[in-house]
């Protein structure tokens, strides 16, 4: 198992290095000038040149690359674990990402766990009686939930649960804007409020997560239910389940055996979905005014904030690779043949 994990880590590292190279040069090929955006449209030519020099953009591209890596004498860069400073805010990019990433991770991790907890039993239920009422209803729901993009569902839920019913809070971020946030330790409001013993912030945080999580779970559950259902149907029809039934094993034990084999493909789907949702988090963050990594990525791209773009791509890729790695380990535990 150790060798398996080491091999996967080495591959992930190579992928990150390749990505860093591609992103650095690709953004510099785009036909736009970040300096013009930064100094404003009424700035003079001299101000523009001064700004260009301050950002180091008057140097040759290879020198800029050396500075980015931290390979130049006295420079601090990727090799020293330094993502640089944002050109828009002047803050260290690592600090900004450290603030934005937990917001998104909290949202999508809770959503994934809930979606998984709901979808697995639902998928099993459908698989027990293919073509039955539960199966047909689930099929209809999957089709319905997947027929519209998630931001559309988000807006609809806001309209219904906030504007009409008044059950949900206004979509104004992670907490009531007039409340006081708990001190940031992990960046996850739920955890930080518990650490601070601030139960009002904890319940307010959960309340504000209600609609974004509902939106995510609503959209995510469809494909997971379908995947679990199809795998369970296939597994329940296999020879070893037939043999187990013939041997008189209780249905609960048979279901546990079948589930173990049916879960592996669903986990793969989960990994793919996690990376996909992380990269596209901006839609749900925009709808619910959440200052997450998706919004940060889009803001950085629109402002041509090179250090932030470079870092955010690497961080999102690293999180996705970490999730893939974790799922590979779970896979290997479920099916020891994979580890060899």
């Amino acid at each position, binding site marked *: 198992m150790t060798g398996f994990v080491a091999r996967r880590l080495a591959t992930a590292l190579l992928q990150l290095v390749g990505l860093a190279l591609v992103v650095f040069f690709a953004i510099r090929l*785009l*036909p*736009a*000038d*970040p*300096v*013009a*955006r*930064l*100094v*404003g*449209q*009424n*700035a*003079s*030519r*001299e*101000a*523009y*040149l*001064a*700004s260009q020099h*301050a*950002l180091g953009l008057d140097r040759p591209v290879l020198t800029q690359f050396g500075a980015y890596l931290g390979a130049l004498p006295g420079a601090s860069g990727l090799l020293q674990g330094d993502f640089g400073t944002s*050109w*828009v*805010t*002047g*803050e260290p990019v690592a600090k*900004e990402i450290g*603030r*934005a990433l937990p917001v998104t991770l909290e949202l999508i991790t809770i959503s994934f766990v809930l979606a998984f907890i709901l979808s697995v039993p639902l998928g099993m239920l459908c698989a027990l009686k293919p073509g039955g009422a539960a199966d047909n209803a689930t099929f209809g729901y999957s089709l319905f939930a997947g027929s519209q993009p998630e931001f559309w569902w988000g*807006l609809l839920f*806001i*309209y219904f649960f*906030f*504007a009409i019913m008044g059950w949900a809070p*206004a*979509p*104004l*971020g992670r907490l009531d*804007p*007039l409340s006081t*946030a708990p001190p940031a330790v992990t960046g996850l409001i739920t955890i930080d409020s518990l650490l601070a013993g601030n139960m*009002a912030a904890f319940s307010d945080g959960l309340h504000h997560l209600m609609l974004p999580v509902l939106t995510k779970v609503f959209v995510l559950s469809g494909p997971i239910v379908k995947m679990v259902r199809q795998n369970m149907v296939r597994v329940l029809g296999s020879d070893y389940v037939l043999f187990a039934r013939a041997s008189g094993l209780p249905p609960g034990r048979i279901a546990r055996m079948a589930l173990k084999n049916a879960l592996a493909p669903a986990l793969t789907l989960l990994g793919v979905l996690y990376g996909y949702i992380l990269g596209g988090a901006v839609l749900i963050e*925009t*709808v*619910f*005014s959440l*200052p997450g990594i998706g*919004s*940060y990525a889009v*803001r950085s791209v*629109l*402002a*041509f904030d090179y250090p932030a773009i470079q870092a955010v791509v690497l961080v999102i890729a690293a999180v996705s690779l970490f999730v893939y790695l974790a799922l590979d380990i779970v896979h290997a535990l479920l099916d020891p043949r994979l580890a060899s």
Partner: protein
Amino acid sequence: MRKVLTGLATAAMMSVSMQTMAQTLAVGKQLLYLAEDVPAGLDYDGPSVSVNTSQTGFINMMDTLIDYPLSGASQDGIRTLDFSRFEGRLAESWSYDAASLTWTFKLRQGVKSCAGNTFTADDVIYTLARGKSVSGAAPINWFLASLGSIKGFDRSVFTGGSRELGDAVEKVDDYTIRIRQSSENNLFLTVLTVYSMAPFDSVEMKKHATAQDPWSHTYANTVNAAGFGPYCLERWVKDDEFVLRANPDYYRGKPDIDRVVIKRVPQSANRVLAMRAGQAQLTQRLAAREFQNLATARGVKVAGIFGNETLVLGLNWRTPPFDNPKLRQAIAYAMPYEQLARIGYAGAGRQWEAHFPTSIAGFIKPEQQYPRDLVRARVLLAEAGFPEGKGLEQYADAFHLAFTAERESYLGPIATAIKAALGDIGIQLQIDPMPQTQFADRRMVKKDLPMALSDTEKPVGPDVVYATRLYFVSPQAGGVNNITNYSNPELDRLFTAAQTEPDPAKRLPLVAQIQNLVQSQLAWVPLLETRTQWAFSERLSGLTWHPDNSLRLFELKLAQ
């Protein structure tokens, strides 16, 4: 058991209510202001200065030496300023000695910053010395000082000249300073009203200086803007929220609103919903139709003013055939102004009949006008040498109408209407939306866009001469952001004369000539003046329009 549970629940609810009441009493009046973003930085010489939401931050935390007095109100009740007069803020009085080109300012005494430091002449000197060091990412203080001809603030600082303040500013005593100009320039007081000339609290700023950053740009940009304004920073989470607390020692009196929470809500539809639900008291930058929608909501008011927001069609003078005056006029006569105002701004716009906003000092309505007149447009097109558009095929590359793709929602329909209108007289057009950064680069740096729709020309110095230098003066004569490459020696001469003429009576005709000249030549094609609007709780009052389009929170009053 049930009774016990009910009792416990009631006690818990009462406790929470009492806590909330106690919190409200402790905090005082609070305002929730929903914005599309919160300040990205607080250094007005920093990279975020061009971002309007950043300006909202430092504008309310700092104060300028002088400003404009109130003059009246728009029909909707938005208060307006009198741009022909100045009134003291951190400066109490001032005088000018024409012989030595020297301004003497008497500074206000007893002014305290949020850090508790007292305002003195040293703060003004520090601020101008910092500006002349051009050490920030966007040296706007230097730029404004150069527009006002403060001695030594010229282009030489970028070519090896001195970056020291020298004798440009002299401290007479703690509350008196003298500022010297390099030449007579009437824009001097105008530039002093702009936010990037506001004095820093030098004592506080110096505490955060480092060897690498002697002027504390990092501190100002990422931690706090140390100034002498009405509000102090309480909390700032970038990309999320910005919380200000009233400065109890503010020299004009403690602000009416004790705490202001500026919350980032990028989705304008959500801002509308929150306003409708009464959960926020102020928002702006909604789509015109959303303002219309909110105007019918209970407890919400929508008000606006024709300030300095406009829409122009830039035709590049260096790109044939746009150097043909008759063609430019034909295009102006063909524009469907009313339709553009309707489809792009839901009626919150009107034909712009000049090259300058009607609100600014020195404005006159020019004699030459371009109402929609297709017959006249066709005649002018023929006189230009292109009857019914024939012959323009060879310039197909020039007829690409660019605009920023991020503003597609309203500029897209406007571009389509222009394409259709020009098609009516025989001019074929391609629509060319592009990313904002690419648009800004080609418009400001390369200046090679043949045709461009732009709504970002908003002079923060509300004066015709200031706007002339910004948009129409040639680079050789000191022009700054001449986006259409307009160049006219006569205009340059009139500008210099107007800028240096000390007698207001002699200056007015020069200013009028400038306006008539650019209008007759169509330096650009003015399309619309658009309303700057706000949606706010009916309990809120005191909204005042300033040329930077940022509200002064100090001026707001919130009824309980």
